[in-house]
Every structure is written in structure tokens, then in C-alpha cells.
């Protein structure tokens, strides 16, 4: 029998016992819907997570530290390579060298220091960090109130919410809803902060004698360096207040006041590393405690890390962490898939039941068909076509249902999130391949369910079938 005839007869037969077949088809739909819903939740959550993580800059950032930084000393991976004392210094030429590596979009020094800030003549001690202009596009500063720095060297500051509260003398009371960032920003915007800091001033010639004394014990001659530390003041205009997660893994967000990177560099603030590197720093080039390297594509992080390690530095990236996150989602997907499939397994039994019932009911009809020349294959294909049609129909309805469930949950969750003043999120994702997969899956599961009934119908003895009333 040809396919169009087969389809026509199958659909006709399905219409004949409309109620029973509709119920079975609904069963399949529910199964497919639960599968689609479960998997799209898994996929949606995974996408949400990786979207957030990507935006956070965690996955495309490599933090470079000098091996001379003994905080990392003794870590397994650092045992190879040059000994700390012989390794290179993380200074400006090195930064430029790193920036020239392939796949690196930028490399900027992590400048961070604790200092005093005066606001309305009251001193506050806090951590200040420098931000590159590229931070503007990162997720962390998306919710900033006010604006980002007008230029890389502008004497401007962005405050962390907690610091803004401190400046205004508002301490958050537990139990009460946190103050909105906008409320904090309004009175502070455009106000002036006075930052007092220790500037490192190179004074090579003035102190050459002392320097010579210091270095006489060295194995090889090192040009001497010396500097003086001068107290300075810098006026800063408050341009924004940010609500950053203080627990965030990203370095700069741990600070409470942010300055433009260019400005911070030009200030030559005394860094803790300056003391350590004084014996080596031959020039007035700044030496950095660490450099953040942004990689163009997260997939190239490993390559860039390797290249930097070859240069003789320690590196750190979150890449390994991301791998285990992806693994977690794979497991979650399988888990959700299995749960979703359970409903489909029930639907499978429903199809078998419906078709076995149909055989009993249409026994005589099968006998007639055989008597007038239908082959075993014809009967088998007819039952297969019925199973397949139910599967396909159930699949289509199921995908639509699953999608609708997803939308409802998505909207519902977002309404809840909004009421909790969180930004709306898209948890639910039904990619086209999932639709195709669900349809194919329900079709083939239904065919598999039709296997036994079709075989049974095909083997029916026509003489007995015709005798059956």
C-alpha cells in the first residue's frame, strides 16, 4: 500500500474511535510537553548561567601575577619554570608585551590601594580600585546609577553602594528592605570627594649614594633606584553609584571606590609591591602586582594562559571552574531528560494499549482486509501509520504545550523577580533543535509502541478474524 493511502486510512481509523485516540494522543502530548519543559528548563538555566558568567568577564579574563609574588609560592603548578627570585617583574613593558600576544584584547594593571577619602570634611578609609574603560560594558556595571567615567583620565569616581550609604550616614538596618541605589545616588551625584594618597616619587639622583650602599651586597651590579613617598590630594567628582555584588569573584568589585584606570596610573600611588621590587626596579616604570588580561574569546583562554606562562609568570583563570559548571549542566540535562521521558514512557504504554484495543475491536475488519488481498505488510504498516500519526500529532501538541508551560513559568517567575526588585531573566529556552528532537522522539517512540500491536495485527488468522463477531 502506498504512503498516501496508508496515511488516509490511518487517519480515518483514528477518527473512527475519536475519543479513545484523542485521549491517547493527549497522553503523548503530556509526555512530550514534560520532556520539552524539563529540557528547556535545563537548557535555559545553562544559557542563563553562561550568559551571566560571560558578561561578568570571568571567562575571558586571565590574571597574571609575578612569580616573585610569594603568595602563590609552592603551588603545584608553579614548581616548574624559573625560581621566583629569577623571574621577571610585572612592569609596563611586560604589560605591553602581553597585550601584543595573539587573541588578547587588552591587558591592564590591577591598581588597588587603601586610602583615605574625605567627604564633607569627614574622613573615610576604604579600598580604591582602578577600572579600565572596557569595564563599562561588563555586566557588573550595567546597573550603575548615574554614568560611567567621561574619560580614562577624568578625575571622577564611582562609588559602591555600601560606601555611598556610609558617606550619607545610612547604615542598612536588618529586616528592612535595602535602600534603592537611585535614592543613594541622588544626593551624591556631582559632589566632590577628596582622596588623600601616598605618591611614589622617583628621586634617582638625589639618593644615589644611599642606593649604592644598599646594593653593594648584590651578586651583580644593579642600577640603584630610590623614591620618596609624598602625601597628595586628588579631588574627585562622584559620577555614579553602583550596586555590585561584594561577593563577586571579580577583583575590582571588591573595592568600594572606583577610579578611571588612566587617572589611577598617573597618580603613581604607592603600591605594596613597590617595597618588594625596590631592589629590582631599575627605572621609573611602574611595577604592577597583577595584570588582568582580557581574551577576545573564552575558548582561547587556555592558549593565552600558556603563552603568558612561557613568559615566566603565574596565571589564573576561571576556565577550570567553567568546565565543571558545564559538566554539571550536562548531568542536569540528562537528569531532567530522564524525568521528562517518564511521562513519555507512560504515553508509550498508552499507545500500546490503544492499538491492542483497536486490534480487538477491528479484528473482523482486519480479517476482511486480508480476505480481499491485504498482505501482512499492509496491515502492519497501517497500524504503524496509526501509531506514527498519533505520535506526530501528540508531538506537535506536546511541543506547543511544553512551550506554553515554559512561557507561563517564565512570565510567572519574572513577575516574582520584579516584585523582589530583581531584573527579569529568561530561564526558558526552546531551541529549534529541541522542537525537532521532541517531534522525532515522540514519532519514533510511538512507532516503537506500535511495533507489537502491528505485528500482532499482521499475524492475525483471517479465518478466525472473519468468524469473530
Amino acid at each position, binding site marked *: *500500500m*502506498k504512503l*498516501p*493511502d496508508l496515511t488516509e*486510512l490511518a487517519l*480515518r*481509523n483514528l477518527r*473512527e474511535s475519536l475519543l479513545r485516540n484523542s485521549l491517547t494522543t493527549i497522553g503523548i502530548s503530556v509526555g512530550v510537553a514534560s520532556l520539552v519543559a524539563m529540557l528547556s528548563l535545563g537548557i535555559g538555566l545553562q544559557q542563563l548561567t553562561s550568559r551571566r558568567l560571560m558578561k561578568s568577564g570571568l571567562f575571558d579574563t586571565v590574571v597574571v601575577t609575578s612569580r616573585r609574588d610569594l603568595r602563590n609560592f609552592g603551588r603545584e603548578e608553579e614548581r616548574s619554570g624559573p625560581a621566583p627570585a629569577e623571574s621577571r617583574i610585572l612592569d609596563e613593558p611586560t604589560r605591553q608585551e602581553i597585550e601584543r600576544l595573539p587573541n588578547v584584547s587588552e591587558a591592564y594593571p590591577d591598581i588597588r590601594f587603601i586610602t583615605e577619602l574625605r567627604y564633607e570634611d569627614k574622613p573615610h578609609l576604604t579600598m580604591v580600585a582602578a577600572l579600565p574603560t572596557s569595564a563599562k560594558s561588563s555586566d557588573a556595571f550595567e546597573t550603575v546609577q548615574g554614568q560611567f567615567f567621561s574619560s580614562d583620565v577624568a578625575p571622577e569616581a564611582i562609588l559602591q553602594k555600601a560606601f555611598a550609604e556610609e558617606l550619607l550616614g545610612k547604615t542598612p538596618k536588618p529586616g528592612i528592605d535595602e535602600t534603592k541605589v537611585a535614592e543613594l545616588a541622588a544626593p551624591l551625584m556631582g559632589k566632590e570627594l577628596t582622596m588623600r594618597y601616598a605618591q611614589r616619587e622617583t628621586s634617582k639622583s638625589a639618593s644615589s649614594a644611599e642606593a649604592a650602599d644598599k646594593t653593594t651586597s648584590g651578586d651583580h651590579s644593579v642600577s640603584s633606584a630610590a623614591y620618596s613617598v609624598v602625601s597628595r590630594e586628588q579631588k574627585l567628582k562622584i559620577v555614579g553609584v553602583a550596586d555590585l555584588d561584594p561577593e563577586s569573584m571579580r577583583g575590582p568589585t571588591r573595592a568600594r571606590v572606583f577610579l578611571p584606570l588612566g587617572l589611577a596610573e598617573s597618580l603613581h600611588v604607592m603600591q605594596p609591591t613597590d617595597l618588594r621590587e625596590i631592589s629590582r626596579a631599575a627605572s621609573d616604570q611602574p611595577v604592577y602586582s597583577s595584570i588582568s588580561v582580557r581574551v577576545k574569546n573564552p575558548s582561547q583562554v587556555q592558549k593565552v594562559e600558556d603563552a603568558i606562562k612561557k613568559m615566566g609568570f603565574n596565571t589564573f583563570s576561571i576556565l577550570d571552574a567553567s568546565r565543571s559548571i558545564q559538566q554539571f549542566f550536562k548531568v542536569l540535562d540528562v537528569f531532567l531528560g530522564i524525568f521528562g521521558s517518564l511521562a513519555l514512557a507512560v504515553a508509550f504504554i498508552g499507545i500500546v494499549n490503544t492499538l491492542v484495543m483497536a486490534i480487538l475491536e477491528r479484528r*473482523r*475488519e482486519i*480479517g*476482511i*482486509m*486480508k*480476505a*480481499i*488481498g*491485504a*498482505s*501482512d*505488510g*499492509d496491515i502492519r504498516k497501517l497500524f504503524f501509520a496509526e501509531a506514527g500519526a498519533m505520535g506526530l500529532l501528540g508531538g506537535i501538541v506536546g511541543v506547543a504545550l511544553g512551550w506554553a508551560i515554559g512561557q507561563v513559568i517564565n512570565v510567572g517567575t519574572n513577575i516574582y523577580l520584579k516584585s523582589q526588585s530583581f531584573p527579569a531573566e529568561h530561564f526558558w529556552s526552546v531551541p529549534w533543535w529541541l522542537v525537532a528532537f521532541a517531534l522525532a522522539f515522540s514519532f519514533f517512540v510511538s512507532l516503537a509502541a506500535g511495533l507489537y500491536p502491528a505485528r500482532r495485527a499482521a499475524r492475525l*488468522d*483471517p*479465518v478466525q478474524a*472473519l468468524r469473530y463477531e
Partner: protein
Amino acid sequence: MMSSPDRFSSKNAPVVGTAVVNSPAIRVQQLCRHYRMGETLIRAVDGVNLEVRAGEFIALLGSSGSGKSSVLNLIAGLDRPTSGSVIVHERDLAQLSREELAHYRLHTVGMVFQSFNLIASMTLAENVELPMRFAEVDRAKRDSLANEALARVGLEERKNHRPSELSGGEQQRAALARALINRPQLLLADEPTGNLDSHTGTEIMNMIRDFNQQLGMTIVMVTHERALAERYAQRLIFLADGKLVGDESNSAGATEKDYPRAETDRP
């Protein structure tokens, strides 16, 4: 099989080839069909020998349980013999695969039953068309062929009715149209008038005789009504307890000619 527009009306239809005319259309040899029912063995057909010439109209007679329907089912290829053979047009049905047997039923045999056996969910036209679906006849051709077949049994007006909307006679006529649709050489009828009143029964029997005489179809009819058999059949075969107990040629059936016969019909 080729179809021509006059396939149902031709008075000298070359339905059977010369080779077939010379050899018997159906040859039943030492045919046995035994069933096991619990502990007892039922010999439904027990060593039947029978030859039917091409174009012959025979009646299988016997009381219920005599094995006449079993013989018919074996000739129809619906059942397989326990032993012995049924050879139709030189082909031993026992040797055919299930697939080949289905093909044989589709193209060589047309069947009508006491209970009509139309498919209740289908209209007459669809019922008549169904064997053509199995035969994979072109969709375009099927409609006109089904209409033609229904016209031949006088049901073209009712082609869109379902069987339940028709009288028994009309249903049996539709069943005849269906049996004819793939142009078989053999028409097997199992008590075709059993559910009909005598008037309608006569109508159906006249049609069957027409098929025999005009189309040259070989006809095997099972009945328990001797009078009916004597009126239409050329030969009466009597069965009892699965055995052949009588074989009479019936001149009445042969001589009652309302129509000129096809020249290939009888030697």
C-alpha cells in the same frame, strides 16, 4: 493486469488463457485440514479430491460442519492445509509465502460472504476501492473503476452511503462489486444469499451467474440450499464430515442460459 473500459461488460472477455482452459482452474488433491481443539482432533477437511475447470460454476453442498466452508477458505488462500494441496492455475497454494498468498487473494480471487463483510466505517465507493489500494492502483484510475464496478451492480447512486444505510441485497451487490474490482479469475461465494430474502437472493444469484457467463469467471459457491445450487450451478459437490460424498453434474444449471456464453467458457 491491464484494465480496459469494457472490462465488466465484455461478452467475450479473454479472462483465462488457453493453457488455463485446458488444465483445471482448481485442483484439490488429498486435501486435509485438521484442527486441534483441546484434546480432540477435528478433521474439518479430510482427504478431499476435486477438480474445477476454468469457467465452471460449482456449488459445495453440505450441512453445517461438513467442511464446505473450510474447503472454500483453503481455495481462497485464507487458510493453509494440514496436508494435501490446492493448485490454482498451476500454483500450489501450500508452497506460497504469506506475501505471495496475499497477492494471490488480491489478484486471483474475489470473495463474497454471507455477512457481506463490508467495512462499516467506509462508504460503498471506498469499500469497493479498498482492494485497489492494496494493489497500488493509481489514485486517478481508482475512482472511475470503482464507479464502473458499482454501476455494474446498479449502485452508482448509493456510492457515498455507508453499508449500514443499505439493505442486505444492496450490501451484497456492493460486496460483489468489490470482489470484482481487481478482475479476478475466481469468485468464491460463501452462502451469498444466506442473509437475504428469496427475491433479493435471486437477484444476487443472477448477478453471479452473469459473472460466470459474461466474464468467464470460475465460481465456487458454498451453500446448504440444494434448490439454489440446482438452479444455478453446473456441478454439485456434496461434503459430509470433511469428506467428498457426491459429485453430480447439473444440467439444469448449465442449460438455464439467459445470456450467450463466452466461447472460452466450456470446451
